[in-house]
C-alpha cells in the first residue's frame, strides 16, 4: 500500500531511483493486472548495468503501447507509405534521360512556373492581408467580429469544386465582380489572374490562423513600454511587433504556399487551362494520366513532391527556430 501511494505522490515526476521504481512497479502490476502478473520473487534486476541495456523507451505502467504503435505503423504503412513508395519506385525506374526531358519540356516548365509563381504571389498577398485580418480580429472589437472569425474558415471547409465554380461565376465577364472589372479592362476568369484569385481564396485561413495565437499572446505591456520609451506607432510596429510575429508569419506563409501549389479543384474551373498559358501543374498530371503516359505523370508528380517535402522540412525547421528564438527572449 505504501508503494502505491508513493507512486501516486511521484506520478508527475520521473523517479530516477531504479530500485524504488522497480519495487513500486511490481506492486502496481500486481494490483492492476494491466500486464501478465509477475510473481513477487521475479523482481526486475536492480543493477544499473542492466538498466542501461533497457529498450528504446522508458517503462510506463500505461498499457497498450505495443498494440497502438503496431496498429499505427500498420495503417500508416498501408495507406500512406506503400503508395508513396510505389510512386518513387516508378519515378526511379524511369529512364533518367526521359525523366529530365519530360520535366524540362516547355509545357511542364510553364505549368510548374504558373503553379509555383501564382502560389508565391497568393502566399505573399495573404501574408499581408492575413496579418491585417488577424490584427483586426484580435485587437479590435466591432459588431460581427465573431461572425467574421468563423467566416475565415470557409475556404478550409468548402469543397474545392464548389469554390471553383463559385469563383468562376463571380469573376466571369458577366459575373457580379467580373463585369465591373471587365469595364476597367481587367480580365480575371480564364487567365493566370484567375488562378491567383482562386489561390488567394483557398490559402487565406492559413496565415490568419497561424498568426492569431501569437497576437493573442502578445501582451499590450510590450507596446506600452515601447511607447513609454518614445517609439512612434510605426516604430513600435516595425521594431517590436513584426519581429515577434515573423516566425508565425513565415510558417503561415509556408503553409499557404504549400496548399496553393497543389491546389486543383478550385483552380481548374477559373483557370482556362490553356497549355503554356494558364495550365497548372496538377492539371498537367491529370492530362498525362488520361493519356496513359504514366511515366511522364510520375515525373511531374515526383518533382512537385520533392519541392513539397522540402517545404515541409523548411516549415519544421522554421518552427523549431522560432520556438528557440522565442525561448531565448
Amino acid at each position, binding site marked *: 500500500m505504501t508503494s502505491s501511494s508513493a507512486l501516486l505522490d511521484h506520478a508527475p515526476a520521473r523517479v530516477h531511483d531504479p530500485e524504488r521504481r522497480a519495487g513500486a512497479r511490481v506492486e502496481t502490476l500486481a494490483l492492476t493486472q494491466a500486464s501478465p502478473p509477475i510473481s513477487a520473487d521475479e523482481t526486475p534486476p536492480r543493477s544499473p548495468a542492466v538498466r542501461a541495456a533497457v529498450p528504446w523507451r522508458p517503462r*510506463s505502467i500505461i498499457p497498450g503501447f505495443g498494440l497502438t504503435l503496431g496498429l*499505427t505503423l500498420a495503417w500508416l504503412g498501408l495507406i500512406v507509405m506503400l503508395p508513396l513508395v510505389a510512386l518513387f519506385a516508378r519515378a526511379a525506374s524511369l529512364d533518367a534521360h526521359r525523366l529530365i526531358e519530360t520535366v524540362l519540356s516547355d509545357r511542364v516548365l510553364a505549368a510548374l512556373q504558373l503553379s509555383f509563381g501564382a502560389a508565391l504571389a497568393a502566399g505573399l498577398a495573404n501574408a499581408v492581408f492575413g496579418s491585417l485580418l488577424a490584427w483586426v480580429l*484580435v485587437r479590435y472589437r466591432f459588431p460581427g467580429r465573431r461572425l467574421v472569425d468563423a*467566416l475565415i474558415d470557409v*475556404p478550409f471547409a468548402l*469543397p474545392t469544386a464548389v469554390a471553383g465554380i*463559385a469563383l468562376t461565376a463571380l469573376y466571369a465577364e458577366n459575373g457580379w465582380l467580373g463585369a465591373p472589372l471587365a469595364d476597367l479592362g481587367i480580365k480575371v476568369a480564364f487567365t493566370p489572374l484567375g488562378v491567383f484569385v482562386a489561390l488567394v481564396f483557398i490559402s487565406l485561413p492559413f496565415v490568419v490562423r497561424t498568426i492569431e495565437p501569437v497576437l493573442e499572446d502578445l501582451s499590450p505591456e510590450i507596446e506600452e513600454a515601447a511607447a513609454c520609451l518614445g517609439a512612434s506607432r510605426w516604430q513600435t510596429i516595425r521594431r517590436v511587433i513584426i519581429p515577434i510575429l515573423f516566425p508565425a508569419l513565415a510558417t503561415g506563409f509556408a503553409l499557404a504556399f504549400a496548399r496553393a501549389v497543389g491546389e486543383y479543384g478550385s483552380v481548374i474551373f477559373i483557370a482556362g487551362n490553356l497549355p503554356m498559358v494558364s495550365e497548372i501543374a496538377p492539371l498537367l498530371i491529370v492530362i498525362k494520366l488520361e493519356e496513359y503516359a504514366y511515366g511522364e505523370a510520375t515525373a511531374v508528380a515526383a518533382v512537385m513532391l520533392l519541392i513539397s517535402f522540402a517545404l515541409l522540412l523548411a516549415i519544421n525547421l522554421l518552427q523549431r527556430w522560432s520556438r528557440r528564438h522565442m525561448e531565448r527572449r
Partner: protein
Amino acid sequence: MVRWILILISLLFVGTFIVLPLVTVFAEALRQGARAYVAALADPDALSAIGLTLTVAAIAVPLNLVFGVVAAWAIAKFEFRGKSLLITLIDLPFSVSPVISGLIYVLLFGLQGWLGPFLSEQGFKIIFAVPGIVLATIFVTFPFVARELIPLMQEQGTDEEEAALVLGASGWQTFWRVTLPNIRWGLLYGVLLCNARAMGEFGAVSVVSGHIRGLTNTMPLHVEILYNEYNFVASFAVASLLALLALVTLSAKSAIEWKIGRGLKGRGH
C-alpha cells in the same frame, strides 16, 4: 480612426473573397427558381452521387477516427525515439497535392501499376471503382483526427490514466472511462473536419474514379460534370448542398470552440 479604416479594409476583403463566392453558389442555384432546383437534386444521377458521397464518408471517417485515437494514444501517452518522425509521417497527406494523392493509388492499383494486374485477375476492381475512391479519401483525410487529438492528449498528460490504473482499472476501462470523456470535444472537432474533407474531396477522387456517371461519381465530381456540360443550375444546385454541409460544419465547429473556450478570447479594445 486608423482602427476603423483597418476594420473596413478587413471587412471588404472578407466580404469580397469569402462572402461573395458563398452567396454566388446559392444565387446561381436558385436562378431558375425553386422547382428547377429541386428537380436538379431529384435527378437519378445526382441522387446516386449523393449516395456515393455518403457511403464513402461513412467508411472513411470511422476508420480514420479509430486510427486517430490509436495513433494519439501511442504518441501522447508514451515516450519513444522516432516520435517526431512518426508525427511528420502522419502529417504527410496534408502536404501532398490531392492530384498526387490520387496518382499514387493509380500507380499502385491501376492496370499498369504494381498490384493492378494481379488484383484484376482475381476480379477486384479498385481504380475506376468505389474501392479506389474510398482509399483515396482515406488517404487525404488521414491526419485530421490524429492532429486534433495529439496536442490535446499531450496537454492532458498521463496522470489521470496512471491514477486509474493504480486504482485497479484495466486498460480498456481506463480508456473508456477516463481518457475518452476528456478528449470527446477534440474528437468531435476532428471528426467534423475529417467528414467535411471526406465529402468534399475533389482532386484525389477525380483521378481514381473514372467519372462513370451514376456509378463512380461523388457529389463534387458530379458538380464538375454538370458544369462542363453548361448545365449551370443543376451544377450549382448540387454545389449548394455541399456549401450547406460546409456551413453546418463551420457552425458546429464554432459551437464546439465556444464550448471548450477556444477561439477568439475576449480581449480587444
